[in-house]
């Protein structure tokens, strides 16, 4: 079986299902939760590993800055053309190029980190149900052990009217 999951229209019901699944012995990382919007008010919204995106953004900025310094210094020194009495390597205007490439590096690093850490580029994704985009929250377990399916079904059925699906 690929997965067993329940669809809930109320956030509190979904949270209850998550709690019961944890009580049934499922590890946090094995619980799949899909929601149509971020639910900061519920605890399951915070069950994610910490992110180092800010650090990667700073790193990207540093790489951009270094690239810019190398670009302007090496090329301006290699082709020393005098323009308007300015020095060959003029640092005031070079600061502008450095600033732009720093910000570009930070932005690029942020987006790359997002794509990688959110798993957006993976060809093999986990389970998904179109009901999620219509407003339901999905809580389930992927590739459950055969023996535990009944327990999981019990945990997911805590709310009356919850739709349980097995695929």
């Amino acid at each position, binding site marked *: 079986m690929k997965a067993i999951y329940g669809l809930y229209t109320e956030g509190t019901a979904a949270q209850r299902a998550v709690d019961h699944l944890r009580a049934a012995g499922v590890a946090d990382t094995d619980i799949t939760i899909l929601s149509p919007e971020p639910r900061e008010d519920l605890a399951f919204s915070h069950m994610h590993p910490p992110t180092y995106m800010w650090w990667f953004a700073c790193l990207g900025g540093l790489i951009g800055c270094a690239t810019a310094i190398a670009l302007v210094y090496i090329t301006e020194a290699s082709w020393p*053309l*005098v*323009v*308007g*009495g*300015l020095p060959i390597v003029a640092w005031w*205007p070079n600061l502008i190029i450095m600033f732009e490439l720093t910000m570009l590096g930070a932005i690029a690093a942020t987006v790359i980190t997002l794509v990688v850490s959110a798993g957006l580029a993976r060809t093999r994704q986990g389970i998904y149900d179109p009901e999620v985009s219509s407003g339901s929250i999905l809580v389930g377990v992927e590739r459950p052990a055969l023996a535990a399916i009944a327990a999981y079904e019990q945990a997911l059925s805590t709310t009356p009217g919850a739709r349980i699906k097995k695929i």
Partner: protein
Amino acid sequence: MAHKWGMAADLDRCTGCGACVTACHAENNISTVGAEQAARGRAKHWIRVERYWEGEFPDVHMKFRPVMCQQCDNAPCEPVCPTYASHHTPDGLNAQVYNRCIGTRYCANACPYNVRFFDFFNPSWEKPLHLQLNPDVSLREVGVMEKCTFCVQRIKATAIQAEAENRELKDGEIKPACVQTCPATALVFGDLNDPGSEVSRLARSPRGSKLLEDLGTLPKVTYLSKQTQP
């Protein structure tokens, strides 16, 4: 020592005849644009004779001033060109490299003397004028900037000749087209780094002044005039 080419223009000798303008057109393959386009501001006079009236009738008199590229040492046209088409050469000239120019026209806006010209159309000459083109000067296609070069083709040709003959350049040997043609010998060309040259002497003259000197462009054309400048 490297050369530093400069010019002097004696306004007390200039009669405003315009022969320098014609000579420049002939030497540098500058096409005329016709009366209609000239009225719309498309004429390309690398050297032009500015004519000003002074005083009230009947006490009027005219002043003539030939204005060409001042080859500024602190040229405002140079830092703004995005492709280095406008840059400073070691012998003090402001070079305009037609092949690099993409026609942003920033240099022309930055030039306080308005001596830079844009090619609005591909050049054309009415027959038989197409037969008198100078083979030493490239034709400029539509979309590039052009300006006075102090007849750099003549400077280079004479310098190469002097080197071939294993001698130094003599003062007054290089004559740009305008200098050569002026009937009043109002224009002088030479090496400002040579203190003995005619142009250096005139640059030190008490009659001498620079055009728009207060802008800090460090132009290399000295204008000589007995009257007080307005």
